[in-house]
Every structure is written in structure tokens, then in C-alpha cells.
């Protein structure tokens, strides 16, 4: 255990945990916005896959990582329009339509990968960028302030989303539509317009999540996300629909995963316990979810399409 508590190992463990948490955080933040307005999107994972492929293919063709990330985000936005059309305008059962979106993303991204790419080649990944002065702080600097721009963006979005939800008129409308859409409608708030905007925004975040996941490994593979999108949905419940809570859940999941891997590599976790240890991130998250879920309630109109009466 002593080898774990060395500066080099601890620095890399925490830094890797933060980087690993980033796709979860982005996807969960987007899902939080959507769910606060009453729309649940189980297609997050499929959207992440399509966005990851779009990011990869654009990077392969252009060599421009900024274009690639924009392609990923743009794919999320387009999928957000489709999701909003199905869930908000057509008022489909959100759980089922979300699964449909997920399956479509899973299959279509695999098809495109096979037809357009052939032999996969790695792309250049986003280099870590040190924040001047902060990255020179002993120990902490290497842990927190030498990350890629997507990691900084993800964590910067936490206070921004919190501010928007809690301090702006738009945020008030989102929450009103999620709690009591009929009342919001009677006060002149366009429920459909708000939900369209939150779903598109949420799916754009999911697109960024796919892009960040792709940038982490530097190569696309079929089912790259490994159902991380569903973990992100669970993290929304974990975080009690609050951006800071969602950030905490994402960090817990990412850090536990990396700590387990580090302990395995140091021989702290024996081989006989390896498979059991691999389940730790999910188990810990579910246990925390069970404990926390009782304390907060979900938006009252979550998952229910709104139709004006009369």
C-alpha cells in the first residue's frame, strides 16, 4: 500500500480519475437539464456513440481536432432535434423512444465505422494544457491543472449550468415545466419550446461527452461507450438533479475506477479478487444512489409528455 501513496502514483491516479469522469460528467449534465424540464432521454449512450464516430471520422479526414469536436457536438445537436421531435412534439413514450435512439446510435455508428473506416488508425489526441501558475503548485498542480481543454470545459459547465438553472428566468421556466407544465403553460410559458431547447442542449452535451471519450482513447471502436450513457443517466439521480451533485457522482465513479486499476497494478488487489474489484465503481455508485435517492425527489412531471387540455 505504501507504493500507492507516492507523489507520482497519486498524481496520475487523481488526474486519470478526473479525465475518466469527464464523459460521464458532460453526459450527466446534459441529461440533468433535460430531466429538470420533465424529459428523460435514455438514448444518451447512442448519441455519444454517433458523436464519438463523427469526431473520429472528422479528425481522420481533416486532422483538425477542433473541427472534430464541433462535429461531435453538432451530431449531438442533430440527434437532440430528433429526440425532441419524438419525445416532445409526437409525445412518444420517452423510455421506449430513448431505447430506440440508443439502439439506432449503437448500430448506425458500427455500420458507418465498418463501411467508412476499414482498418482503424489512431488520431492525435488533445494534449494536456497546464493552467499557468496553478499547474506549478506541488502535487495538486499535476492532479488538477494539467488536463485537456475538454476536461476544463466539462468542469466549467458545472457552475454555469447551476447558475442558469437557479439564477435565470430561463432556468426558472425549465424547473416550472418540469414540476407542473400545466401551471407553467397557464402563465404563458411554452412547454414545448422549453423542452425542445433543453433536449437539444442536453444532447449537445452528450455529443461533447462522446467527443471527449473518443479523445481519451484516440481511436474509435464499436460500442466504444460500453453503456456509459446509462451510467450518466443514473448519475443524474445520484446527483439529485443538481449539477454539483452530478459532478460529485461522476468524480466518484471515475476515481474509484482508476484507484481499483492502480491497486491491481501494484498488486494490492490480488488476482483472485480482480473480477470482483472491477465491479466496485458500479456497486459503490448504486449503493450511494440507494442512500441518497430517499432524500430528494425527481421533477414531478418527469417522463410525462404534456398535452394542453381543452
Amino acid at each position, binding site marked *: 500500500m505504501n507504493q500507492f501513496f507516492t507523489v507520482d502514483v497519486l498524481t496520475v491516479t487523481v488526474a486519470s480519475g478526473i479525465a475518466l469522469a469527464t464523459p460521464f460528467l458532460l453526459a450527466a449534465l446534459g441529461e440533468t437539464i433535460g430531466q429538470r424540464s420533465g424529459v428523460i432521454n435514455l438514448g444518451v449512450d447512442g448519441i455519444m456513440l454517433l458523436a464519438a464516430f463523427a469526431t473520429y471520422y472528422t479528425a481522420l479526414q481533416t486532422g483538425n481536432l477542433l473541427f472534430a469536436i464541433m462535429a461531435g457536438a453538432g451530431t449531438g445537436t442533430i440527434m437532440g432535434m430528433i429526440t425532441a421531435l419524438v419525445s416532445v412534439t409526437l409525445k412518444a413514450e420517452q423510455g421506449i423512444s430513448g431505447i*430506440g435512439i440508443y439502439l439506432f446510435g449503437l448500430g448506425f455508428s458500427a455500420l458507418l465505422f465498418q463501411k467508412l473506416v*476499414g482498418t*482503424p488508425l489512431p488520431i492525435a489526441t488533445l494534449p494536456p494544457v497546464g493552467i499557468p501558475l496553478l499547474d506549478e503548485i506541488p502535487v495538486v498542480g499535476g492532479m488538477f491543472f494539467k488536463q485537456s481543454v475538454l476536461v476544463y470545459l466539462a468542469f466549467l459547465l458545472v457552475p454555469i449550468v447551476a447558475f442558469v438553472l437557479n439564477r435565470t428566468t430561463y432556468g426558472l421556466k425549465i424547473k416550472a415545466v418540469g414540476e407542473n407544465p400545466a401551471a407553467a403553460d397557464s402563465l404563458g410559458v411554452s412547454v414545448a419550446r422549453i423542452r425542445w431547447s433543453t433536449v437539444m442542449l442536453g444532447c449537445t452535451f452528450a455529443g461533447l461527452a462522446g467527443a471527449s471519450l473518443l479523445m481519451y482513447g484516440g481511436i474509435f471502436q464499436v*460500442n466504444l461507450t460500453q453503456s456509459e450513457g446509462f451510467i450518466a443517466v443514473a448519475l443524474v439521480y445520484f446527483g439529485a438533479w443538481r449539477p454539483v451533485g452530478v459532478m460529485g457522482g461522476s468524480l466518484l465513479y471515475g476515481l474509484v*475506477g482508476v484507484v481499483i486499476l*492502480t491497486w491491481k497494478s501494484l498488486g494490492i488487489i490480488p*488476482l483472485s479478487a480482480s473480477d470482483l474489484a472491477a465491479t466496485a465503481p458500479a456497486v459503490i455508485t448504486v449503493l450511494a444512489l440507494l442512500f441518497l435517492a430517499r432524500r430528494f425527489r425527481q421533477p414531478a412531471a418527469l417522463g410525462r409528455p404534456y398535452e394542453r387540455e381543452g
Partner: protein
Amino acid sequence: MHRHLDRKLSLILPAVLVALVAASCGGSSTPAPASPAPSPSVAAAASPAPSPSAPAAASSEPSPSAAAATTLKVALVAPSAVNDLAFTQSMVEALNSLKAKYNLEIAVSDNQFVVATAANVIQNYASQGYNLIIAHGSQYGSTIQQLAPQFPNVSFAWGTAGSTYNLPNVFAYQANSNEGGYVQGAMAALLSKSKVLGVIGPIAVGDAKLYVDGFCAGAKFVEASISCIPVYTGSFSDVSLMATAATTFVANKADVLTGTAQAVVGAIGVAKSHNLPWFGTQWTQVSLAPSNVVSSQVYNWAPILEQILTEIQGGKLGGATFTATLGNGGEQIQFNPGFNLPAAVKAKADELIKGITEGSVNVPQ
């Protein structure tokens, strides 16, 4: 009226989505994909067909012209993509290399990582009259055990596994991946300056565990005090976990890395970014890191497939187990000319390959 139209659309659109899903998932048979380029000349390096590990029943071998005239329908069901640069690609390449010689009509269903769906796919192929169905994944074992008796005139080949379930229409095939692992582990120990090796596996089963165990055994054969602690991520396909595992090894001073499973592409990226040597297995991974891949243990399933196809043409549909080894050409160590390998390390590798092939070097199981 507007509400009525909305309801109709709300029914039609999910149906359209489902249709799109069915089209894009591509679970049913598709024509065999062309080999993703570039690919090593596996066929050129193949040795003559090896004898199986179980005694083969006497079978009359058809003449080459007769064999080529009869079309054999072969289906492959695999858990990962045809271009995964690992497990599935090795089988696809082998099948394609035999297509002309045996006049094969090949169908491939890849990405069948959900066993229940794969079972459906296998059953469909059997119902469509395919002569040989290759279930390329140990997770398909129970499916084969259930379906094979229902289709006694169809031959099933299951790998990587050593059991035919005593069924007359099931062949089994496996790879002694510990052999190539042993050779590469020895090379890694000689290349390592820090004497810490990074070894990443998916789950401790099958040929993945064999390879990892062989690698560490080979490393310790050369350098008894070397650190070779494998990390199993718990997933065959989680690229980010493999990349993270590689990163933790690098933080722990590992200066040579290896790994197995289709998710190793993530770990290879870490090796490349830190400019560390990488040893591959199942398929050549040079394209991912041309300057870092030292060598790859490449699976060459062609000799085993030839034996199976010959048995089928002779009327025998199963009941034998085949093992790919360094000795029979089922496994090959392919060195990367783009890596500056010291002559002494290459010589050691050649010595071990020769010893394993001749039986003078015993690789622990």
C-alpha cells in the same frame, strides 16, 4: 384532427425508428468483408495443415478439383468487429485466405457481444443450410451445446475452447497463446530498463489468461526479479479502461507494455504517447504504433480451418479439437521491422521459438 394526426405519427415514427435500428444493426448474414488493408501475409507464412490434438477419424480427402467445385457455405459469428485488429480480424483474414481454394461462400455476423442475440443468429444460419458455423468466442459455448443437436447435419466450430461437448457435429479449436506470450515476455524483460512490465488483460479467462501467464513466465525466465503484475480490467472492449490501466502502469515506472483483447487499442495509444515498446497478440497492431510495436503473436487460423473443411468434405462434421501452436503455424511471432530491436533480443526470441517448436522449451500452462 391535429391530435389524431399527432397520434398516428407517434405510432408510425417509433416503427420507422425500429426499422432503422433493424437495418443498421445488421444482425443477419452479410457478405464476407474484404480484408481491411493493410494485413500481413498470413497465408504465405502458413505451414502445412497440422495434425489435430485429438486423433482424427479416417476420412477420404477429396481431390483439389472436386473440393473447389463444391461450394461450402460458411458462417462466422464473432463478438467484436471484423476490423478489431485482434481476435475477430484474425479469423476473418483466415477465412478470406481460404475462400478461393475451398470455394467458400462466407457470411459474417460481427459485434455479436450479446450472447442471446448471437444464439438467434447462429440458429438462423443453421436453419438456412450453412455447412459450417464458426462460433468464434468462448461465450457461445452453451449456445452451441444447445443448438448443435437440433441441427445434426450442420457442422459447428467453437473457439477458443477445448471441448466439443462430445457432440458429433462440433469441432473445437483453441490457441496456446502462452507460447507466444512466453517468447514476448522474455523479449520484454531484456528490453526493460526499469524491470517493471505493464501487462493488461480483459478478464482472466481463455486465451487472454494464457497469454498473460505465458508473458510473465517468459519475463521471469529471463529476469527472475522483474515486476510483472497483470491488471485485468474486467472488460474485453472498454478502451478507456485499458488506456487508464496503461497510464497507471507508466506512473508505476513500467517501460514495456503488452495487452490482449480488442480494447488494447487504448493501451497502445498510451504506449505510443510515452514512446514505450508494445507487444501485441491475436493480430498485428503495427498500424496503430509503427515505431513502438516490437512484435505481435499473430493467430493464423488457416491451418485449423483447412483441417475442419477437409473433414467436412470427407463427411465428418465434428468430434475433434484443434490447437494453434507456434510449432504448427497456428501462431506466428511477427517482428516489426520499424522497431529497432537489438540483435541479442532477437536472437533470444529465435532461440525460444525454436525450443518451443522442437519441444525442448516447456512453457508453463
